[in-house]
């Protein structure tokens, strides 16, 4: 299973990456896309929505099932990946290139990011 070293992971199978501009990019892991099977629909949060870490804020639907996506960090949604929403199957092709949404982190986010798993620890949960 592909778990890049430069990302942080939630036990609920989201990945998070702190970017140079200070925002956090969030998607689902390769393991999650594999378990879901063919992805056919994404419901992404509204830009401007304020979320707490652990809050349900997106839904990924495969042919098989709907799966809730939890934000790994608190903050404001500043961007969503409309291209992925238009072609949900792209997540099956590459779950790391095809992110879901970006968060401008709240003050608590540094601690929340620090509490996420690194690649080795996440891979050990699978």
């Amino acid at each position, binding site marked *: 299973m592909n778990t890049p070293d430069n990302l942080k992971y939630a036990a609920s199978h989201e990945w998070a990456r702190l970017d140079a501009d200070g925002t956090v990019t969030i998607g689902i892991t390769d393991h999650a896309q594999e378990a879901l099977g*063919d992805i056919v*629909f994404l419901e992404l949060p509204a830009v401007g929505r304020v979320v707490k870490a652990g809050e349900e804020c997106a839904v990924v*639907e495969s*042919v*098989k099932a*709907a799966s809730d996506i939890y934000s790994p960090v608190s903050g404001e949604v500043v961007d969503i990946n409309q291209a992925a929403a238009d072609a949900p199957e792209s997540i099956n092709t590459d779950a790391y290139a095809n992110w879901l949404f970006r968060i401008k982190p709240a003050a608590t986010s540094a601690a929340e990011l620090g509490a996420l798993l690194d690649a080795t620890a996440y891979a050990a949960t699978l």
Partner: protein
Amino acid sequence: MPLRTPLYESHLAAGAKMVDFSGWEMPIHYGSQIEEHHAVRRDAGMFDVSHMCALDLSGPDARDYLRHLLANDVAKLTTPGKALYSCLLNETGGVIDDLIVYFFSPQRYRIVVNAGTAAKDIPWMRAQLAGFKAELSVRRADNDNPVAIIAAQGPDARERRSTGNDAVAMIAVQGPRGRERFWAAFPASRTATEPLGIFQAAEWKEWMIARTGYTGEDGFEITLPADDAAQAWQNLREAGIKPCGLGARDTLRLEAGMNLYGQDMDEDISPFEAGLRWTVDLKDAARNFVGKQALTAGQPRNQFAGLLLLDRGVLRAHQKVITPQGEGEITSGSFSPSLNQSIALARLPEGVAIGSEVEVEIRDKRLKARVVKPSFVRNGTPLL
């Protein structure tokens, strides 16, 4: 230990992702369930359906017994090999299971029931044998019982193991090129099987080859000795037939508008409320089948219809449908790979018109859907 079919090793070798299905370890897909779905609509795919339970019925009263047991009437079966779809009802007219019965002679039939329901069907069918001279034998194989179980006559029958291996496996080959590719793999079967009409079977060697299926495409369902299954699967793969899992099987049957037992109907639902009125044969007034009295006394309050989602999203079982005539419920829903849109089967209040628009509650939203006839795709062609 989960139950495994005689093709378990073949699935692993083909890269299957295995899941639990009614206690059976079965392939959900071999990579992409959408690609498998398209293979069946456009060319040919095959499914291991050995978890379904084949039962052989024989005896002088076999025909009378089935006319008592089933809501459809086996009296209309007169050509050897001809098959009939029927519900097995309880006394209140609810559906215990749906099944296919194959006629060979008035003294000999084969019945195929669902995997998850066989454990309740068999005792029920045996209890109904009281007073009839007939014998029911279980032909399904699994890893615990690799040989068939033969039941003696009557409700108090003791089971005994067959001394030889009488167990069978079942493979469904489906798709517009399914029969051609099957004949390429087994050329000697062609003479016996090419004349077969829809819903008709022929016996070839020890195999039963039926022109039936659960996908809305042409094809064969093959019942063969368990010992032949792995080699046959291999030959069919070499003939270009793509292995397909339960995932594709579900989207294919949903597009074809075919009911799934346990989702679209169960013991509390009458066939009249599950879109199966056409399978209940009331023509012979003298025939008293189990459940008839309850069925003919009641008035169905619901109709069975299809839904086509007009907004983006995915319809799923148990979502609430809001109509001007009241609330309904989705019984099966998914994404249709052929239509590239979500579809569903639903139980709706009587009076909701085909073609009208309704709303479906999905999480915190209400999405628009159109009510359609419960059949979306047949023989590779969208019907909408």
